Every structure is written in C-alpha cells, then in structure tokens.
C-alpha cells in the first residue's frame, strides 16, 4: 500500500471542507449558472464528507497488523464524525419540521385563502411573501404585498415560490444546513451557506422569468425591496434585490460553455475521493 494516495485523500478532505467553501463563495461568476453552481456546491459537500469519513481508517489500514490501537482509534474517529453528522441531520430535520408546523398552524387560523390562487393572505400592511415547504405546503402573502404588486408582478412572485416548492429547494437547503452544523463551529463557513441560499433564489428567479418574463419579476423584486426587517443580514446576503436584478438581466445571455465547465468540475470533485480511495487500497 502506498502512503501517497492516503496523504492526498487527507489533503482533499481538508481542502473540500475548509478551503473550498471559502474559495467558492466569493466566485460571483458561479451565480450566472445557478443550477450548475448548486450541483457543484453539492458535490463539493458530499465529496468532502466522504473523504473526511474514509481518510483516517484508510491511513491506518496498512499498519493495522502492527499497530492495532492506531487502527481502532482511526476507525473510532470516523465513527464519531459520522455520529455527529447523523445527529446534526436529526436536529436540523426535526427543528425545521417543528418550526414549519407551528408556523403553518398560525397562518392557517389567521390567513384568508385567496380563491383564485389558493395562497394564504395575512392581513398586515407591510409587504412580505414566503413559502412553507413540506407535505402540507403553503404560499403566504401579506395584504401589503398584494397592494405593492400589480397583477403580472404577483404572478411572477407566485411562479418564484411555486418553483421553490415544486423543485423541493428546501431539501437542498436542508442538506447544506445539516452539513454546516455537523462541522465544528470554528470551521463553519457562514458565507458559503448564505451563497447557497442566494443561488437557490436565483434558480427560482430563472424559473419565474421563463414563465412570466423578466420585467414583472424584476418589478416584484423592486416592490418587495426592504420588505424584511434588516438586522439578520449575513455576509453575501446584503442588497440581495440588486444582485438578483443583475442576475435576471444576465439570464438573457445563454452560457452553455460556462455551465459545462461547472458541471465537469462537479463531476471531477465527486470522482476524486473515490479514485484516491481505490488507489490507496
């Protein structure tokens, strides 16, 4: 057995979990192909987790006859990492479902159902709009939002929310959130999580503009700008309305070359730890 592939695998695990999120989040060119970019983020995350889980036992594999203790320690380390990941999955999963259920219960006793669209309308003057994903999903708008938007803008906003629900964007977000919480706190990358949120919004914008056109969607973003109270802003999330407007403008340009490049990057990132693990055995 060769030490080099194992060393490479350890380095890869560190690169994918610690360096890659910090290197990728400032790459705003990823945003021009949000679908491909989200796939790249998912493969970096999956690949990093896999590399981190297998590298310690693989490193100790060659010396397991002479140093059985080291082998067991390495395996235990991986076991602990896996347990942490599963625990995070459980916590985030139940937390999200509880939050959504409580929120839906509230909305259901408060909101009137709009006959035409089936969305829940809250009687509040400030504009807001969101969806609650899940089996009993809801799209929620405030009276203020309906007043701020014209008919075509409302349709574009609803197309955006329906794209979230149809494509189950919540599951992608949940996956990133689970891994984010499984990583030890000092190594977590908040900007990476914020960037994946932005990519998911950009992806739903793409779906909405294909359906309703760019101008109504852009109008809805302008009208809803400032609709959520500031204070919870995360790095990368500020002036989101402006960033998304520019991405909508750019959506007029097809970028098959760039998308292909990002897709191949995603594929390569997935293949790398598998190749290294096979070679090291």
């Amino acid at each position, binding site marked *: 057995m060769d030490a080099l592939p194992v060393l490479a695998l350890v380095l890869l695990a560190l690169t994918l979990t610690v360096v890659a999120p910090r290197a990728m989040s400032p790459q705003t060119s990823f945003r021009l192909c949000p679908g491909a970019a989200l796939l790249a983020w998912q493969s970096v995350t999956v690949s990093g987790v896999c590399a981190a889980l297998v590298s310690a036992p693989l490193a100790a594999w060659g010396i397991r006859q002479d140093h059985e203790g080291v082998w067991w320690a390495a395996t235990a380390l991986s076991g602990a990492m896996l347990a942490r990941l599963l625990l995070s999955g459980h916590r*985030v999963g139940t937390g*999200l479902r509880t*939050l*959504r259920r*409580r*929120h839906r*219960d*509230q909305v*259901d*006793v*408060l909101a009137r159902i709009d006959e035409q669209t089936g969305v829940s309308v809250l009687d*509040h003057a*400030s504009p*807001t*709009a*969101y969806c*609650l*994903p899940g089996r009993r999903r809801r799209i929620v708008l*405030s009276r203020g939002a309906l007043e701020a938007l014209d008919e075509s803008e409302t349709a574009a*906003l609803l197309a955006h*929310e329906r794209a*979230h629900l149809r494509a189950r*964007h*919540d599951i992608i*977000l949940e996956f990133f*959130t689970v891994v*984010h919480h499984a990583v030890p706190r000092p190594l977590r990358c*908040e900007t990476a999580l914020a960037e994946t*949120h932005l990519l998911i919004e950009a992806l739903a914008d793409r779906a909405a503009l294909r359906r309703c*056109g*760019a*101008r109504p969607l*852009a109008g*809805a*973003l*302008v009208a*809803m*700008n*400032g*609709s*959520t*109270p*500031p*204070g*919870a*802003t*995360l790095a990368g*999330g*500020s*002036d*989101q*309305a*402006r960033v998304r*407007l*520019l991405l*909508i*403008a*750019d959506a*007029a*340009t097809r970028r098959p070359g760039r998308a292909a490049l990002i897709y191949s990057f995603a594929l390569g990132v997935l293949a790398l730890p598998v190749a290294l693990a096979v070679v090291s055995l």
Partner: protein
Amino acid sequence: MLHSDATYDPGMSTTRSRDLGDLERAVMTVLWDHGPDQSVREVMHELNDSRNLAYTTVMTVLDRLSKKGLAQRRRDGRAFRYTAASTREELTAASMRSGLETLDTGDRRAAMLHFLGQSDPAELADLREALAEVERRHR
C-alpha cells in the same frame, strides 16, 4: 397497518382538512372577538348563528387549538374554559417575521423561503440602475 386517521384517504383529505381548517379559523375568531374564558357552549352558541355544529365537534376543535398552543384552557368545574394564547395582531406580526428572535437564523431561513429574505434594502438608485439593465437586456 390500520389507518384510522381521517386525513389518510387521499380522496377525502383535501376537503376534510380544508373544512377542519375553516372550523379552526372560525373558532379562533370567536375566541379573539368575544374575550377570554369562553366555554365550549358559548363558542358553540356564537358559531351556530351561521352553522349547525355538535357540542363534541366544537370541543374537539378547541382541544386541537390548545394542543397547537394557539389557545389556552383553564379548568372550570367539570369543563374547560378557553382563551386565545395571543391576540390576532400579535400572531399576525409573528407570522410576518422570518424570526430574528430565539432560533438560529440559519435554521429559520431553511424553514421558510422568503421571496426576498435576510437582506438589507438596496439603495433605490442602485435598484433603478439594475432595473434599467434588465429592460435593456430583455428586449
């Protein structure tokens, strides 16, 4: 496996849960409009101006609402009296927020997807410029 749950039958679920939802809304409205400590009979009396409901139906709905934390109940002799847990205005305000309070904002953001979430409002001038760019490119 037995499915005694009324919402199980896929053909029935939409109408059933919708009716139940309407009823919960109506009962909450009574609690909001008619003050604290309402008995089942009082709530039933208010509702039966417009519909004909059995005592047990109203009791079940009130029980569900208190299990959901939307109503609070207090024992009064052999029955319960019900009060809305928060005012309609408070609950509406809570439903509007993306929740900056107790919980981890990361989890909150994944719980509900805001159309335009967690961002500082952009400067109007910047927005106009970006909007002009959209109109120029999507001709």
